[in-house]
């Protein structure tokens, strides 16, 4: 079965074709990020209008790479939530039109389910990396989301904790802005941090957020502010080495907080399998530290390749395939939503207290 996936929840317009087993046959992403945005962090062509322009060429490109073209599409999966409503609607309307015209089944997909299940995508015959068994703990860390989930099956996903303020990727972008490093902030901070020394920063390391907190929620706003304060007081370091040290100190605090909460979730749930997803999972510092700490605690770590971590439609197609495999179909009148449905579970409530 070939599932056409369509994704338009935020800044990327994407289409992909994936088999029910997760084999990626086509994967097309049109990014709206302009690297040299004059106003750091701005996406100049926002949301729906840019999606409207990109969606048909992107879908055509993805289907064109499929042997048999549109006739070889057996079902359609589309991101239905969470995201910008105007942006989601573009993908959903195109998906519905295709499903109606082709008379094929359609399923709406939660974007976050896509990220959590992206680890099962297989990109080419050489992709023989091991996949996790269920249940596993999944971290999604990106510009718009930072949350920990327990995934028992594709149909049974529980939220264990999430950010109380800024997403991890947003903290990277905003610290990069404070340091004048441009947008997006993640890759450039990661590159500089690798050359820097967190202990060489005047004023010392930054406190790791939320370590004293019992639950597995995150918070990155205070860390962002601490960096901004440090820069306001001492100025932006005058040389690249100083900036690299500051990046190393900031990234070390983010990474330690993320890894710490991931391993805490694994321990609490008694689940020794951890999957990283979202754009921040591309961060080399995070990957290295997670590997180190997981090895020390007997947790198996799974990190999908970059193309599966960042927003893409292959993960949507695969998550849709798991719904279709359960016999689920959506009627053509389903809507979109800006929010993830409430699905908080686990041993700790939002205040960090034991349930």
């Amino acid at each position, binding site marked *: 079965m070939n599932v056409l996936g369509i994704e338009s929840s935020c800044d990327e317009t994407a289409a992909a074709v994936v088999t029910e087993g997760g084999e990626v046959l086509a994967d097309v992403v049109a990014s709206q990020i302009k690297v040299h945005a004059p106003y750091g962090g701005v*996406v100049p062509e926002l949301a729906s209008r840019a999606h409207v322009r990109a969606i048909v060429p992107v879908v055509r490109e993805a289907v064109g790479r499929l042997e048999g073209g549109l006739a070889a599409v057996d079902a359609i999966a589309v991101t239905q939530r969470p995201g910008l409503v105007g942006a989601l609607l573009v993908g959903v309307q195109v998906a519905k039109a295709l499903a109606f015209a082709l008379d094929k089944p359609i399923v709406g997909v939660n974007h976050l389910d896509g990220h959590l299940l992206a680890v099962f995508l297989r990109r080419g015959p050489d992709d023989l990396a091991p996949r996790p068994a269920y249940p596993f703990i999944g971290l999604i860390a990106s510009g718009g989301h930072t949350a920990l989930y327990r995934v028992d099956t594709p149909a049974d996903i529980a939220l264990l904790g999430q950010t109380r*303020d800024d997403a991890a990727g947003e903290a990277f972008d905003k610290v990069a802005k*404070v340091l004048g490093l441009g947008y997006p902030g993640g890759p450039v901070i990661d590159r500089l941090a690798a050359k820097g020394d967190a202990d060489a920063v005047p004023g010392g390391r930054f406190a790791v957020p939320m370590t004293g907190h019992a639950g597995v929620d995150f918070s990155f*706003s205070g860390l962002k502010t601490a960096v901004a*304060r440090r820069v306001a007081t001492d100025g932006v370091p005058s040389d690249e080495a100083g900036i690299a040290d500051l990046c190393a100190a900031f990234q070390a605090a983010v990474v330690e907080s993320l890894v710490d909460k991931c391993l805490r979730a694994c321990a609490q749930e008694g689940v020794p399998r951890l999957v990283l997803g979202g754009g921040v999972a591309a961060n080399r510092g995070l990957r290295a530290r997670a590997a180190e700490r997981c090895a020390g605690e007997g947790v198996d770590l799974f990190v999908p390749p970059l193309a599966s971590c960042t927003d893409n439609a292959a993960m949507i197609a695969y998550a849709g395939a798991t719904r279709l495999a359960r016999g689920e179909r959506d009627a053509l009148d389903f809507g979109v939503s*800006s929010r993830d449905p409430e699905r908080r579970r686990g041993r700790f409530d939002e205040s960090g207290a034991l349930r």
Partner: protein
Amino acid sequence: MTADLPPPDPADRSPAPASLSLALADEAATGRVAAALARALRPGDAVLLEGELGAGKTTFVRAVARALGLPEATPVTSPTFTLVQEYALDPPLVHADLYRLGDPGELAELGLEERLGADAVCFVEWGARFADALGPTTLTARFTMTGDTSRELTLTATSDRGRALLSAAGSDAFAASE
């Protein structure tokens, strides 16, 4: 909640304060001012939030949301990526962030103008670049970092309604929270 706010008295010739500066020692002080402002706000009020990254704009809106009854369990997260977040409170609270917006034409896609001046209380971060496109607002709240946790907050009225709000709230509630 609008009962504490006296209607403007046409006979009162004394100039209403156009601006109010408050020294906030820490996040708790910020929370008290936010709560006082929340009590004084009416549906239709719109507050522009200004201040550099980390100055406390989202923190302030979180405190307003809590004061309007949003349970601790519901996080008030940064709207930088989602652009607009709405909380079903009384009155409804709209929290927008135009940081990522490129040009005023994109405002229309956010559906923000349907909420500004309507039944909701709107807080807009990074809105100064779009002041013309946003239309009439009530107040501008500018945050300046004066220390690790201390902030200076300057509230400036941008309409008659804003001046009335400042003169009512400035004399008692805000003063008491300093």
